[in-house]
């Protein structure tokens, strides 16, 4: 599989699609997100697996998001996600609150081709009370044992940034197995990669265990520093100064708009 240009790969994300996104410690495709903002793709349904931060906040701030399903949206040490918070308070996005293991399990249901999976906990919470799509049944193998059922989630696209791709289109994700779960469950996977690997990742048994096979991958883009300003473990740290600049600007809708215009213009120049 030949690596694509970033605009070509990101153009496969159509308006209204459900896009699965990884957490900030796991390889977030930030360069691709800026391209997505350039292209103006709107009406997106973001599925955070199971939480998101800067990436979701930027897309929400730009008005490109209709629905967010997440266990949490946060900028971590940099505090609350400002545009997410404002959008929920003003009702401009539909917020579907979940809990981390429910998102993992619903994707695992899709991995297995199952219509649903049961999960412990959750009973008596308002998370459950607000989820018309979740059900409670009595465990058919037990005796008076209520348990929650979660319908499978099948995202249209999984979008993430990972370590490397080989010339056969295999990705190396190491122990970031949530990226594999996302890809297995999604109709399409678009990955940006930090480096290109000369040769076949399956030729080396020590690397093979960390491979996401090309069978699950639809588009690869080579983007060094593709997670910036978020961290890519082993390559670069989180750019706290850049994120602090975002937080300050995004405190207001106007500040966010100015920040976004400047940020995207800088990308174009580069």
């Amino acid at each position, binding site marked *: 599989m030949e690596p694509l240009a970033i605009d070509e790969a990101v153009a496969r994300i159509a308006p209204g699609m459900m896009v699965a996104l990884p*957490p*900030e*410690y*796991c390889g977030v495709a930030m360069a691709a997100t800026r391209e997505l903002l350039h292209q103006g793709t709107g009406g997106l349904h973001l599925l955070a*697996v*199971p*939480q998101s931060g800067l990436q979701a906040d930027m897309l929400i701030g730009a008005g490109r998001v209709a629905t967010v399903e*997440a*266990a*949490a*949206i*946060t900028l*971590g*040490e940099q505090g*609350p*996600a400002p545009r*997410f*918070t404002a959008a*929920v*308070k003003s*009702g401009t996005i539909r917020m579907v*609150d*979940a*809990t*981390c*293991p*429910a998102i*993992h*399990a619903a994707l*695992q249901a899709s991995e297995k081709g199952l219509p649903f999976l049961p*999960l*412990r*906990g*959750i*009973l*008596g*919470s*308002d*998370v*459950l*009370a*607000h989820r018309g799509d979740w059900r409670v049944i009595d465990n058919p193998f037990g005796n*008076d*044992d*209520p*348990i929650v059922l979660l319908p499978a989630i099948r995202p249209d696209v999984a979008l993430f940034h990972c370590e490397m791709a080989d010339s056969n289109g295999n990705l190396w994700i190491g*122990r*970031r*197995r*949530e*990226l*594999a*779960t996302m890809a297995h469950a999604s109709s399409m996977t678009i990955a940006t990669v930090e480096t290109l690997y000369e040769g076949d990742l399956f030729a080396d048994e020590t690397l093979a265990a960390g491979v996401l096979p090309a069978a699950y991958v639809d588009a690869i883009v080579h983007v060094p520093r593709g997670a910036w300003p978020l961290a890519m*473990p082993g390559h670069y740290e989180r750019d*706290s100064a850049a994120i602090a600049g975002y937080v300050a600007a995004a405190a207001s809708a106007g500040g966010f708009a100015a920040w976004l215009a400047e940020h995207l213009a800088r990308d174009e120049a580069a």
Partner: protein
Amino acid sequence: MSASAPFLIATLAHQLAGSRRVAVGALSPMPGSAAFLARAQGLGPRQITVLGSRSNNDFTEGGRELFDRAAQGRIDAFFLGGAQIDGGANINLVAVGDYAHPRARFPGSFGSSYLYFLIPRVILFREEHTPRTLVEKVDFISAPGTSPANVYRPGGPAALVTGRCVFAFDRAKGRFRLESVHPWSSIEEVRDETGFAFEVPAEVPTTPEPDAATLALIAGPVREQIAETYPAFAAAL
């Protein structure tokens, strides 16, 4: 006077006595520090996993492994917080006011709706101890403090540590009991600043101050270990 970070870290570490396998979730710099301190003090923790860390994280199955391990009974202790916590140990990590049009919105429930049921010893931590945070009834239940007898629930709340005191949670009675009061506070102040009713035993000790050796551990190895995941917190510690 308010609580210093080292005092709270030491108080939280004390809550981990006897817990061998400790997991630390999102947005948890103080609990993470407490886990490292408790391990350094030999209080019990041997295996610590910190969400977002590379060096203190032995998960190879991705994000779901924490939850799967909890369900298998392989995690002994965990920390949760709350924008609001009520007298029944219900926690709210989502919103204040009406859910559809909240006055305040927080990141979300994370894994609380699940882990609160499954991890035997859940320690609640909220530094701000005011009627705003410790309320009679939470506006949104991210995870309930107790469940009906037929609900599968090997886990639940054990204690609540705040900037003024330590409460123990009695699961059978479904309410908190004042366990100790921090040196700068008092039973009266705790009563005034708590929005829910709780039990007060005849004798309420003062929460012990960390000794010099404990403070040295916090300033040394603990600070170093937490810096990987919470650099800003470590820099200010």
